[in-house]
């Protein structure tokens, strides 16, 4: 299958290894990955901070970049959630009915990685090998906006060598929330502290998730406290094999 | 302009651009129910710390007497033999609504004929019938019929004893709502008075009756 890749601005810039892993994984499974260079950002930061007018050109950019493709994947439940649930609304509230319906259409063809693997490519065992103690943070937007359910866990359970441990309070937010972490830094830090103590309590050496943004947040805290736990994107685990 | 006209005008202005009609309410929730399961009702009542008795209609009065004597013994000072004697020697003052079946009334029953609040509060217990009960939620509804009385009589005494006929028990809330008459004063009761205001744990016994006893009639309804 020919799959268009939306890297997301954050992962493109700060977590290229997660996007690379997405490419290598899909290619290993026999699919063709294309990366349209016109892509930039989905506009979620603008929308969620209250700048829908500034987000409108970004919605347009996303829609025109990905409209030609039948299947689009992004290694981020949060960006996929925004694309599917906010792009149409932003276009419509600015009187752009044509863009709104195209946005809805492209959004319906945009999948988070675990959705693509399980729902579209019908694969649960991706042939990965990852001999580490891992705990999974489901991330709020994967869970409650993109609604990926337990798909990431189903994929992780098939990984050979993995010691998957349950994260207490997994469904509680890590406190990131985009600009929330700046505007309400103290509250964000309080939430992060609880998330970190839950992560540490599992004894895992790796905390994984399907969103680079939450991983940046949790990882930034775990690093500051020198906990020795590292954050790794779900795609990186699924891309790992015994020989790599 | 009156405030009435002002508010209605504001609300109409607020809705000026709203779609004229909304889609019909989807009532896909459960509305057909099997016959009520009395065991579920009992389970729910006990969960609320209500006490349940299942007796034939002929034993209602005796059951009430047993409940009130136990309550009197429990509240009498244990160290005082005289107190204990007093508790067992007199009949408990059991307040009843004027239309309560005679056969259910224990010795010591006195009817509410417009009693003052302090007389009502002084009763050892109040004994009433009910209008309907919901098994799924353990709820009993009073509708102020003559066998249930004014709302005040079931509020001030510390012990409330309700006699429930099996035919009055429905499985679900929708069935209960359908059986009730809206114009009547209704009191929905689910266990004794309680609060969750301290650390969100349920604690029984605040302002309403602290003890709820339910006599669930066995066999036919005894009518």
């Amino acid at each position: 299958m020919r799959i268009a890749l939306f890297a997301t601005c954050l992962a493109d810039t700060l977590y290229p290894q997660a996007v690379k892993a997405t490419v290598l994984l899909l290619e290993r499974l026999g699919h063709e990955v294309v990366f349209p260079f016109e892509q930039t950002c989905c506009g979620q930061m603008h929308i969620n901070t209250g700048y829908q007018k500034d987000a409108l050109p970004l919605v347009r950019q996303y829609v025109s970049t990905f409209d030609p493709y039948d299947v689009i994947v992004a290694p981020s439940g949060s960006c996929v959630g925004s694309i599917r649930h906010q792009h149409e609304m932003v276009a419509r509230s600015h009187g752009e009915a044509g863009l709104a319906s195209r946005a809805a259409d492209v959004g319906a063809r945009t999948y988070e990685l675990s959705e693509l693997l399980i729902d579209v490519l019908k694969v649960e065992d991706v042939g990965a090998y990852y001999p580490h103690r891992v705990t999974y943070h489901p991330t709020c937007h994967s869970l409650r906006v993109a609604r990926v359910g337990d798909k990431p866990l189903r994929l992780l359970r098939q990984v050979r060598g993995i010691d998957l441990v349950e994260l207490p309070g997994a469904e509680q937010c890590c406190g990131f929330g985009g600009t929330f972490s700046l505007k309400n830094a103290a509250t964000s830090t309080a939430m992060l502290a609880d998330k970190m103590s839950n992560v540490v309590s599992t004894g895992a050496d790796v905390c994984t998730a399907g969103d680079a943004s939450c991983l940046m947040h949790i990882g930034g805290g775990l690093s500051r406290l020198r906990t020795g736990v590292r954050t790794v994107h779900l795609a990186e685990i699924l891309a790992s094999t015994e020989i790599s | 302009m009156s405030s009435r006209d002002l508010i209605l005008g504001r609300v109409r202005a607020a809705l000026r651009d709203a779609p004229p009609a909304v889609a019909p309410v989807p009532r896909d929730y459960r509305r057909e129910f099997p016959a009520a399961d009395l065991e579920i009702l009992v389970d729910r009542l006990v969960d609320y710390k209500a006490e349940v008795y299942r007796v034939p209609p002929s034993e209602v009065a005796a059951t009430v007497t047993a409940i009130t004597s136990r309550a009197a013994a429990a509240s009498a000072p244990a160290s005082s033999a005289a107190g204990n004697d007093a508790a067992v020697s007199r009949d408990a003052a059991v307040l009843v609504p004027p239309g309560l079946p005679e056969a259910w009334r224990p010795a010591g029953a006195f009817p509410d004929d417009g009693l003052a609040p302090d007389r009502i509060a002084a009763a050892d217990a109040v004994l009433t019938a009910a209008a309907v009960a919901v098994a799924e939620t353990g709820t009993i509804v009073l509708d102020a019929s003559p066998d249930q009385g004014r709302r005040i009589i079931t509020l001030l005494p510390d012990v409330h004893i309700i006699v429930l006929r099996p035919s009055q028990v429905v499985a679900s809330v929708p069935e209960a709502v359908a059986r009730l008459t809206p114009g009547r004063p209704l009191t929905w009761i689910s266990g004794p008075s309680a609060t969750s205001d301290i650390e969100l744990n349920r604690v029984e016994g605040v302002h309403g009756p602290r003890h709820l006893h339910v006599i669930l009639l066995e066999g036919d309804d005894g009518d």
Partner: protein
Amino acid sequence: MTFLGMPAFAPRGVGHLRGDEPFPAAARTALGNSQMRRNLRHATTTIRGKSGRVIAELPDWQDLRSAGSAIKADVMSRLPELLEELETRVTTAGGTVHWAADANEANEIVTRLVRETGSDRVIKVKSMATQEIALNEALEAAGITPVETDLAELIVQLGEDKPSHILVPAIHRNRSEIREIFLRAMPGVDPSLTDDPPVLAAAARRYLRETFLSTRVAVSGANFAIAETGTLAVVESEGNGRMCLTLPDTLITVMGIEKILPTWRDLEVFLQLLPRASTGERMNPYTTMWTGVTPGDGPQNFHLVLLDNGRSAVLADEVGRQALHCIRCSACLNVCPVYERTGGHAYGSVYPGPIGAILSPQLTGIEDNASLPYASTLCGACFDACPVKIDIPSILVHLRNQAPHPRAERAVMATASRVMQNPRLYARAQRAAKLARIVGRRGRGLPPPFSGWTAGRDLPEFPDQTFRDWWAAR
């Protein structure tokens, strides 16, 4: 300047809808209160567990939510006719209906009605509407003593505190703090009072008993008002509601205009939704329903005060009006990770938590509560918990789009937008960002607003190569 007949916000200078400081500052202070945080964590964890268990018992919970949501949407679309129908039914049943455009008018009406009875004291059932309009302060100013009879409200009143939760206003207090408040402020309290919850509840029972029996006027709110029948309903636990709704000669009910339900039958939906979402019970201990006046049973004078106080302004916003569907169950507070840590006082308004973050700014106008729509990570837990499916995260995003923005932020966002809509500029900015990183190793010492991040977190190491560059070089 408001025009007659145009939707109006709740007026300034009266009521409890506006805080003294923005949410981030108030939250920062609250986060330092370790006792409050422990109390809240314990209480919200308890209620989440209870509520989850009883909701799981109902196979049709999602269908009930859909029905509840649709009934409320229908109410909003037909509000004028339903209000008139309710007025007719209540009047026919022997009640008197009053209309209050705002908090000042509602307070005047209630004060006048109490004065007309000659009583200098009222007993009160917990009511968000009367908290919102600061009725107690208005009554006190008129020489009338309001006595809160709900246990949590009593704790707040005796502790000269503020409510911090919609359902359990004293949720921020634990048993030993409550004991201390009672010992300090409850007249005639037994000095050997322990902190055992049943003992504390019994102390409240003894304290209020005589007041219930001797006060001739009560003030309540309402959970539901049925337009079709004129029936009002108050849902409660302790029996203080029954006392207030049954014993006095005069009952005055203050109710927001959005509390209406069209038909009697609609109760079958809401009486299933509210207790399970709210206190996590299959049913709350007591619900009282009354229709006007019943001769010989209960208050013989009944007044219903219908309150606007900004609700018409909320209704005018086609996205935001969903906030009026709220049935005040508090489920969104109990699941909110922000509320759990900051508590309710940080929100400034009597409506805290996620629902408060969308309701308060709409009632007052966004300028007076501009920080509240940002008091959320948009994690979405509130939306899933709401028994009437209010899409709180979407309304938060909608309100953020209306909120006044700091000038510097506006400039940054506009620049970011310009860069992001041009792939070439975007790639150049990625490289520039990498250079900027050299300035602060691990990101410590970044300037505001980024200092908030680096106070508690490291920044990620900038990679040698962006994905885009890797792909191009492949």
